[in-house]
């Protein structure tokens, strides 16, 4: 029996003014899955992610989280049950790493010693030595370290769903690869459900259980990675072309 869906998006449409951002998107995310939203800039993937935690209101259609429509949730409660990681991590610059990671537990009134334990556990889990990093400020961290702290912060109150908006987009390729590998390890240990936005097809194939390919606000394909590799829609073909290294080298030779 398949695990129950944790998130169900039904016929979602979204417009800003007379621009259609999302058209009739339906998508189900089961427990433990990582669904990657892949698409070009302006394909609506970030907007789709933001409708899930209520940063953007859907115009039509519905989103059900844990069996209940998001419009029926108190938005504050809803957001505290979803971790959120964005490109430049969005860490609070006036707080230490410890205070950043402990934010949601603190909002939820956990006991201070329980928060401290949780922070220590999470920093270790994302590969940062707690003793060395907990008292640092965000400006004393490298890009990759900030992103690790951002992930630890999202995991802090053990939310059932994690939302990632191009979290590794601004990192150098080596650090990015390191974090992607770490993400996979982490997923195997904590078994989290995640919705992950990226425009990088390699990253999508590496991290996903399924890929949701978005084109002009609509869902083009929703497939597991092996089947995605064989997909033949124009948009899928365009993304898969980015994978063909030989193609790139022969093209660059042609340019030379």
């Amino acid at each position, binding site marked *: 029996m398949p695990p129950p869906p944790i998130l169900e998006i039904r016929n979602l449409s979204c417009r800003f003014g007379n621009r259609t951002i999302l058209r009739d998107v339906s998508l189900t995310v089961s427990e433990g899955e990582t669904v990657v939203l892949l698409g070009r800039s302006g394909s609506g993937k970030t907007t789709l992610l933001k409708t899930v935690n209520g940063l953007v209101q859907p115009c039509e259609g519905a989103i059900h989280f844990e069996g209940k429509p998001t419009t029926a949730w108190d938005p*504050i409660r809803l957001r505290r049950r979803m971790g959120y990681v964005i490109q430049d991590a*969005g860490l609070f610059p006036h707080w230490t790493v410890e205070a950043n990671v402990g934010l949601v537990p603190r909002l939820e009134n956990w006991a201070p010693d329980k928060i401290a334990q949780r922070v220590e556990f999470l920093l270790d889990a994302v590969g940062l030595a707690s003793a060395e990093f907990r008292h640092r400020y965000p400006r004393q961290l490298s890009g990759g370290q900030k992103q690790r702290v951002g992930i630890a912060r999202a995991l802090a109150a053990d939310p059932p769903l994690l939302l990632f908006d191009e979290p590794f987009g601004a990192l150098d390729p080596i650090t990015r690869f390191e974090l992607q590998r770490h993400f996979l390890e982490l997923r195997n240990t904590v078994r989290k459900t995640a919705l992950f936005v990226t425009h990088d097809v390699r990253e999508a194939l590496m991290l996903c259980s399924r890929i949701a390919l978005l084109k002009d606000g609509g869902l083009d394909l929703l497939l597991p990675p092996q089947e995605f590799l064989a997909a033949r829609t124009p948009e899928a073909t365009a993304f898969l072309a980015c994978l063909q290294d030989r193609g790139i080298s022969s093209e660059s030779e042609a340019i030379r």
Partner: protein
Amino acid sequence: MNSQLTSEILSLSWEHLQMVLITIAIAIAVALPGGILLARRARARRVALSIASIAQTIPSLALFGFLVPLPFIGGIGPHTAIIALCLYALLPILRNTLLGITGVDPGVRESAVAMGMTERQVLWQVELPLAVPSIVAGLRIATVATIGTATIAAAIGGGGLGVFIFRGISMVDTPTVLAGALPAALMAVVADEVLEWIERKLSPA
């Protein structure tokens, strides 16, 4: 230096300082909450800022003159001067409060909301702490400017170090002008240094 002059300098400096402190206290009490309320309202913000900017452009001697004949708020004496000084002190504090709050990195604000902070928590735990250096910078500009402008209060019987300056001008006596101008300049320099130190102390690490 004779002791009578010294004691007059001290008492007028004290009057001057009192006038400045009351002005700044009132300006903070109005501009800080005002800035917080306006930070969320783009249109009201533009209107308020243009009104405050226009007030700023009225020549100070003229503004003091306008206020004197007005009932209740006008008349001769320090309270009229304080009202005029407040009008000048408002803008820098209001503008810097707004800049501080609206200048918070959108990613930081978005994270705060997405983490499940309430609007009030976002304001008090994220936006205001990050706006503090900008607010103190505005306070510094307002204070230094008020110390200078307050010398004009003497023209409408408000007292303060301007008394020496106006007396010196009418007697064509430079030392008397300096007896007012130098302590006022010193006061401005000290206030500037102290507030700069506070600004540094309060900057998020």
